[in-house]
């Protein structure tokens, strides 16, 4: 009961103090807010990148188009050469006959059907293909080149490199944000420490009296730690709102995918709530880290 009363008092004091030094508190809160927004963006980005890199890694297929006039023996020769390559899933090298492809294409559109109706093996401009899966998507470019060098392979295609580029771009962004986040967190912690320092200075007499009448050290320090904690919580409000509404809006806008079907975004629920919890936690940790630094440095008791 007694501990609870002291606890309540401390909470109240720390909230009061935030409003008493409002402009300073606001500066700290804004700093946490900015930091957490960047954190949120980078986390959302990197989790999404991870997510679709996994999907992409499973699904990216290189299509090797064979010469139009290729014969049966040559088709087998090409196969033998493909499976000697390093970055190839040997079980996932699938031959697709030109007639089969033609049939698929005709089935997908009535216009194509009328054009393709008369195609035979001999006069068809459609090429036979091998569909090949790679083991490491990062080496897909090199593998494609190697395939291109094989005799009787005409052209090699794998989503025009877009997927690969997207992965690299997002990965670079992710790495860049890590640096920014660390810098921001340090600045924020300093700013909070400074805010708490000013609170400590402005409450010097109160602290002296508390010591004099026999308040325990922890009881004297706690309001300042709480103040940092509250700054952290207040600072995370806007980033959380942005995360929950912003990400959901983004997801709906893109219909859950970017550019093509296989770059799928992570579904907003429960993803955004998970991010939100993480943001509050980071806010609290940074806030309390800043305040405990200030207390250690300026509250010598």
């Amino acid at each position, binding site marked *: *009961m*007694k*501990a609870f*009363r*002291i606890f309540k*008092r401390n909470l109240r004091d720390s909230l009061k103090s935030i409003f008493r030094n409002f402009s300073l508190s606001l500066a700290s809160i804004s700093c946490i807010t900015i930091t957490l927004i960047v954190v949120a963006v980078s986390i959302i980005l990197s989790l999404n990148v991870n997510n679709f890199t996994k999907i992409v890694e499973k699904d990216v297929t290189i299509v090797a188009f064979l010469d139009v006039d290729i014969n049966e023996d040559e088709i087998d020769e090409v196969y033998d050469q493909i499976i000697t390559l390093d970055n190839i899933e040997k079980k996932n090298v699938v031959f697709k006959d030109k007639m089969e492809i033609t049939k698929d294409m005709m089935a997908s559109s009535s216009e194509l059907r009328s054009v393709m109706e008369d195609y035979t093996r001999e006069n068809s401009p459609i090429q036979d293909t091998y569909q090949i899966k790679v083991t490491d998507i990062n080496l897909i470019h090199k593998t494609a080149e190697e395939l291109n060098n094989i005799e009787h392979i005409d052209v090699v295609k794998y989503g025009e490199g877009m997927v690969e580029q997207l992965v690299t771009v997002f990965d670079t962004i992710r790495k860049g944000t890590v640096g920014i986040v660390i810098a921001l967190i340090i600045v924020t912690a300093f700013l909070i420490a400074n805010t708490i320092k000013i609170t400590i200075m402005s409450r010097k*007499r*109160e602290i*002296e*009296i*508390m*010591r*004099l*009448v*026999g*308040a*325990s*050290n922890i*009881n004297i320090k706690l309001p300042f730690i709480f103040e940092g904690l509250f700054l952290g919580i207040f600072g995370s409000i806007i980033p959380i709102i942005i995360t929950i509404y912003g990400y959901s809006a983004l997801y709906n806008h893109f219909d859950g995918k970017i550019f093509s079907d296989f770059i799928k975004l992570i579904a907003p629920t429960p993803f955004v709530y998970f991010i939100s919890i993480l943001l509050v936690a980071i806010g609290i940790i940074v806030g309390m880290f800043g305040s405990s630094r200030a207390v250690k440095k300026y509250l010598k*008791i």
Partner: protein
Amino acid sequence: MDLIRIRNVRKTYKTGTTAIYDLNLNISKGEFIFIIGSTGCGKSTLIKMLYREEKPTNGKILVGGLDVGKIRNRKVYKLRRKIGVVFQNYQLLPNSTAYENVAFALEVLGIPKDEIHSKVLKVLDLVGLKNKAKQYPNQLSGGEQQRVAIARAIVNGPKILICDEPTGNLDPKTSLEIMEVLQAINDLGTTVIMVTHDISIVKKMKKRVVLLDSGRIVKDYKEGEYKNESI
């Protein structure tokens, strides 16, 4: 039984100044004692060691059985709850009323509101400020502010009340009123230790008087002994 026992205490500050030299002093429960002496003779240093604002460099200080020099920082609050302290400059919170200033001392200890209420009113009554409870420090005279400070010091029922020149800023008449309050507190059983420069008060009160000079006790007058000495 001695409430306070000071044995061979020496205090040398970090600056190299020795403020107290090998001092011995016993104070019993319920006593009223003045500590006098010229400026810089170590009066404040001596009482600061009693409530562990300063640590003795050598020797031993026992306050109510606690070895003050050995208490850890974390545990100092236990000593402080046995001791009330009053200063020359009152040390009130300017944005709190008289009532709130006194209540503050109990709030920080987590005492329930209704208990705080009755204790604060009782102690404000004792110092004669019941009708000014809602006034802020800047709406009170110096003497009244000092009464608030005294009320705050004793509201938690400490065994010892330490006053460092409590009448230093007050006129003679107001000073005497403050002395009446301290006497009333002493009558209730609280040991009162008061540092002062005001010789006329010391003469009037006829209490035990300890005279310090350059960090040493040069004279320890028993009750009523101190008459027309000059320092």
